[in-house]
């Protein structure tokens, strides 16, 4: 929920205020601490080139995380983002030469939206638990990506194919600009629009929202479409960045995106969270990865650390909730 000014009648002591600030903005403090410690361990952390580098690297997964935030605040879960991500990459790469980049991009958006509609339909109309539903569709969409690409990397000959991932504008990669726009638009829609407030309502209490006359199935279903379209876009950017579309590209995307969202402090139970939190989560993961890479820590260790952080973040969320109620 957006931070509402609570006009609580009883005055709080300074200690309680600090405690509440800590609970609510814990991850912001964690990020600041990480930056400070990280600057000692890796002095180049805050140089322009390094920031540009790690932001560019994390743009695809960051965009996926924005869509995931909508799904999770709406009380859902989407494990199929990795598969849709890969599908976006291979479709974009395969159609770039015959249809041109713009048409190829449009086809990716349509295909991703179709995947999202399937997810939304299964979750809201067939009432399959979102975890199981998207685990299943994720397998199916992933399979389609392999079938479509015949399990081979697709390399378009058009050099412009790489613009999306590597070209710069005003000194920053286009992919970073796109990510920033997605975050800003997503944050605005979620916090300020009728649609966004309705998503909070269905995630916070589906029955209450239904009784108020909200179109709960349509709203919930739409979050899966948004998530899928973000995944498709993320896939296109990565394919462009690497100049190749490959069906195995999205294998770690789902876990990473979920990690970013929950580390930011958006609740797994729905109804609470925010896009700025996802931005914090993204920075934490991106900087952590950047520091580990600079220290040449093997990705296997990084996986262990990331997994641990996700579980710890969720445990922290549960604990912080228990203090409030």
């Amino acid at each position, binding site marked *: 929920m957006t931070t509402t000014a609570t006009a609580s009648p009883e005055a709080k002591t300074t200690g309680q205020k600090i405690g509440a600030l800590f609970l609510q903005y814990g991850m912001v403090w964690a990020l600041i601490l990480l930056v400070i410690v990280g600057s000692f361990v890796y002095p180049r952390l805050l140089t322009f080139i390094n920031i540009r580098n790690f932001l560019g690297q994390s743009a695809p997964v960051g965009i996926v995380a924005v869509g995931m935030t909508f799904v999770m605040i709406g009380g859902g879960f989407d494990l199929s983002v990795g598969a849709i991500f890969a599908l976006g990459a291979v479709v974009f790469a395969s159609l770039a030469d015959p249809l041109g980049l713009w048409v190829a991009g449009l086809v990716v958006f349509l295909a991703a939206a179709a995947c999202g509609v399937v997810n939304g339909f299964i979750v809201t109309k067939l009432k399959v638990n979102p975890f199981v539903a998207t685990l299943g569709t994720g397998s199916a969409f992933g399979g389609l990506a392999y079938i479509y690409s015949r399990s081979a990397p697709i390399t378009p000959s058009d050099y412009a194919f790489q613009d999306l991932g590597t070209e710069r504008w005003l000194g920053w990669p286009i992919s970073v600009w796109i990510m920033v726009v997605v975050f800003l638009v997503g944050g605005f829609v979620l916090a300020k*629009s009728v649609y966004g407030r309705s998503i909070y309502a269905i995630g916070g209490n589906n029955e*209450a929202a239904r009784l*108020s006359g909200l179109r709960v199935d349509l709203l919930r279903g739409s979050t899966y479409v948004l998530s899928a379209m973000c995944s498709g876009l993320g896939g296109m950017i990565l394919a462009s960045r690497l100049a190749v579309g490959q069906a195995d590209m999205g294998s770690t995307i789902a876990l990473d995106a979920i990690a970013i969202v929950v580390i930011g402090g958006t609740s797994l139970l729905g109804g609470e969270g925010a896009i700025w939190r996802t931005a914090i989560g993204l920075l934490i993961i991106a900087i952590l990865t950047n520091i580990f890479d600079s220290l040449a820590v093997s990705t296997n260790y990084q996986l262990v650390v990331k997994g641990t952080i996700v579980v710890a973040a969720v445990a922290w969320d549960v604990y912080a909730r228990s203090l409030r109620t």
Partner: protein
Amino acid sequence: MPEGMASQTMGRPASPGGPLAIDARSVEKRFGGTLALTGVSVCAEVGSINALVGENGAGKSTFLGVIAGRVVPTTGSVSIFGNPLAFGNPRLSRQQGIAAIYQELTIVPALSAVANVFLGQTVSRAGLLSERGMCDRFLELSAQLKVSIPPGIEARHLSVADQQMLEIMRGIQSRARLILFDEPTTALAPPERESLFAIMRELRRGGTTMVIVSHNLDEVLDIADSVTVFRDGEVAHAAPRSEWTKRDLVRAMIGHDLVEPSSRTPFAGKAGAAPLLSATGVSLPGALEGIDIEVRPGEIVGIGGLVGSGRSSLLRALSGFEPKSTGTLAIDGEAVPWPKTPRMAILAGIALVPEDRKTQGLVLGMSAMANITMPNFGGVASLGVISDRRMASSARGVARDFGFDENRVGTTVRNLSGGNQQKVLLGRWRYSLPKVLLVDEPTRGIDVGAKEEILVTLRRLAAQGLGIIVVSSELEEVVQMGDRVLVLSEGRAVARLDAAHAPIKVKDILEAAFKVAKHDHDRDGLSRG
């Protein structure tokens, strides 16, 4: 008045003789920034029934939670039968001889009635479950409570009242020395309440100590040996039953005298007006059979009947919550399709204020103003963008009308008291006016002071030209509010009372409701009233 129960020590720590059943001293409990209990000291003698009363949020349920081992106090000490209580460990509390019966049902729907009663404390012989032993004990308890629940039935098929009975059986089956009841009678009909009280008196004869939290003051004065009144997290006053009158209790609870409930405001609409809502042949398999109901503008129609009579089902069917229901519906004299979803009902002009505020009504994590404007966020937005300023000013208007502090519209609903939560829920339909408002148990779990305000609020909504249908277990409320009352029994309409012809009495409703219950087995011989 119970005799021979010397419980003069309530509220006075330290007594001569044996250890006290409960000896709580200076118990304090803090939830986040709020103090739920501030230095509460309570004593209870062995073998007495002790009632805790107080307005919502006064701290009585929290205190009960401390004794039950569910809530860990911030400071303070509690001894049970002379031994220090293990805080925050329900299992150890159980081993100390404490059993708790909670207001929120803790029934496992997929387990049998027997299994629910013996949940967590199965009777076993040499490590094997003794189905036979449990079943025998179950039947023994059923006989004591005068209920007939088949032992093997899955709990999900039972009514709320029967589930509450299972909960009570679970509490007493373990032969605990100290039993805590948190509002055990809210879901029970009068005969069931009576058998519960009978068994409580029997347990007392056997030396069991009991603590009961209740909003029903008549009930408290009927059963308890001593009464402790909580107010704002403190013990306002504790005294033996003989020193209390109902008036004293109310005064102690709210800190001042209660204004006598205003007599029934008369029907505000035009007498001969065409009905706003007219539903005929409302049926729902297993719950409702061909009910006709009409509401005119400005009119409040009360639904009378016992638990399980189909009162709530009727409201749910009319508001699109029962897709399997059938019937014909006309709004403002025009036929509309039978609502199959809540949205269809709302578009037709019918809104429901559900019985369960927290799970069906409110989004607890959102602010009061967002909850109020939820049916139509678009009303405080332009081009799809919400204006917090317009949302707040709309909500403030509603708050002023409903006696809810307008400066608290930004407060997260979770942090509001039950009465204020209910005002927010009703305020939603003041913001977005339907034609007909269906209200299920508007005053459940709300303290005495706020109750009257809620009833006045409903009357005020009716004066706007709304038609209102109210369901309440408190038949006095149905009588106080209803311009007409429709009495249901076993899913059928059995009587229609009209205040315009003769004043409606609680007795009339009960008689109508019970007449049918007695002739349960010959359904065909009944005619609709």
